[in-house]
């Protein structure tokens, strides 16, 4: 209702100059930098590589290569599995933290929220590097295990494994996951939970049947913000993953670097965006299913 009132009030005065000036920066950035630039990637994906900037001809050859070459299947599948595992690990470990923040933290809530989001504002590169020095052959974990007498010899088993990639990425994106889940838990009406317990639900039952379904929008949002940067990442696989953890982001990056086949790199990017689109649609579908419960 207040929207209606506001509409009537300012309808009479809004000058076109004001509207133009206020819309201009956003329009430039969103239409030119986002939509047009992404359109260029889509365009390039259908072109052949002739060494020129925008390539030549139109064909599905790039996509045919992606589909027919098992290498790309392997890498895509691996990226999906690693990004999926990172997302799962991050969301599952973040949930209890968000739960504590929403229902138990009381006076410490502000400080705790700050503490869990602080690492997000520090260098991503340094956090990945930190894991490299933890997991290295001459690194912290090995030397600590030997110093404490648990291990007698350093092991190569930590670094350059897909597991190292999962742990490092789960650590790097942890702060992303807590906030959306916390916000979702915060917005659950407390009366709903009280009603559940009044009706005789035990704490676990009311968690499983009331709190968890109602927090699913937050869980899905958290999963998306972890999954999206993870699937395109090439820094972590390069630093702690070794050759066995090459991901699709690494392939895209090399097409624009060493291989110098931009149209093919663009086609790989389009495939990644398609994967993300599917994930977003699935998440949205799941969201709607949970949304209808309340």
């Amino acid at each position, binding site marked *: 209702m207040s929207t209606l009132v*506001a509409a009537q*009030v300012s309808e009479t*005065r809004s000058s076109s100059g*004001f*509207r133009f000036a*206020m*819309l201009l*920066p956003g*329009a430039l*950035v*969103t239409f030119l*930098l*986002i*939509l*047009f630039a*992404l359109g*260029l*990637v889509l365009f*390039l994906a259908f072109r052949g590589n002739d060494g020129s*900037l*925008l390539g030549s001809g139109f064909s599905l050859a790039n996509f045919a290569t992606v589909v027919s070459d098992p290498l790309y299947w392997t890498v895509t599948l691996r990226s999906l599995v690693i990004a999926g595992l990172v997302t799962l690990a991050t969301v599952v470990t973040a949930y*209890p*933290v968000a739960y*504590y923040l929403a*229902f*138990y933290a*009381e006076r410490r809530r502000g400080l705790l929220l*700050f503490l869990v*989001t*602080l690492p997000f*504002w*520090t*260098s991503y*590169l*340094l956090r990945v590097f930190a894991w490299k*020095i933890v997991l*290295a052959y*001459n*690194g*912290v974990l090995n030397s*600590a295990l030997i*110093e404490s007498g648990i291990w007698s010899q350093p092991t190569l088993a930590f670094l350059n494994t897909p597991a190292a990639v999962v742990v490092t990425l789960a650590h790097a994106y*942890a*702060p992303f996951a807590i906030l959306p889940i916390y916000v979702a838990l915060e917005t659950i009406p*407390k009366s709903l*939970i*009280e009603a559940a317990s009044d009706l005789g639900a035990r*704490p676990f039952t009311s968690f499983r049947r009331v709190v968890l379904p109602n927090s699913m929008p937050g869980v899905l949002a958290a999963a*998306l913000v972890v999954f*999206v*940067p993870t699937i*395109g*990442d090439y820094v972590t696989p390069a630093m702690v993953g070794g050759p066995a953890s090459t991901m699709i982001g690494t392939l*895209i*990056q090399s097409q*624009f670097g060493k291989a110098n086949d*931009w149209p093919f790199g*663009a086609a790989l*990017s389009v495939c990644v*965006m398609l994967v993300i689109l599917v994930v977003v649609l699935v998440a949205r579908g799941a969201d709607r299913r949970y949304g209808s419960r309340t």
Partner: protein
Amino acid sequence: MRVERLGTQRNGRWLGLYVLAYLVFLYLPVLLIPLFSFNDSIQAAFPLQGFTLQWYAILYGNSALSGALLNSLVIGAIAASGATLCGITISYMDLYGRSPLAATISAIARLPILIPGVIVGISLLILVNLVGLGPSRVAIVLGHILVALPTTVVVMRSRFAAIPRTVREAALDLGASDWTTFRRVMLPLSLPAVLSAFMLAFLISFDEFIVVFFLAGTEPTLPLYIWSQLRFPRSLPTVMALGTMILAVSFIIAGTAEFLRHRGLGAVRRISASPA
């Protein structure tokens, strides 16, 4: 009060322990960097050798490093200004502009969250090559505006939404133009959020690597410099000394941004609570 209904104190204690362990997991790897930056060994391993400041001494007077640092600071300041300006105008028009265009812009502005950095990087690389700019500092600024945009839009949007609509309506009713209302009422009321958005955008730009990797010309930013140093085992302790300083500054800026965000919210609450 609500604690009793949701679970027992005992559950809370277990959860509290879990949160503590989680914080250790979050911070322990990061804190290794300062720890080893003072260690008198080229190897980052236990046991610790002697205490030294030599890695910090190496940093001092390194022209490649100071060039990269200056580059990052300038790019960060410009990109954060651009992202904040866009964040302010986009969210303001989204909330008060009531045009489909404003709503569309606002929706697209939050889209970069759903695009992996590598794709943001290559799409801008194609764009800047198309317009003849090529990899350059300007290209990096554009990239960083894009990466920071969702954050500034979200911060500004929640602030504008927290200001009671009656405040803007009163200004308009008293005869202030849209410009005056924006400049003299809405902007001052959201100033702490503007500063917070700027600082967060600056931090994002300062730390950003994945996008900048494609867009940097001959002058690297600080993360690119670090990346190039990581290949040489001999320079790792120096990288840790540099990393320690970056961590310290990032913590301070993030802390200040957080403080401003809350202080601003307090001001908005006071206004809404005061008798009309």
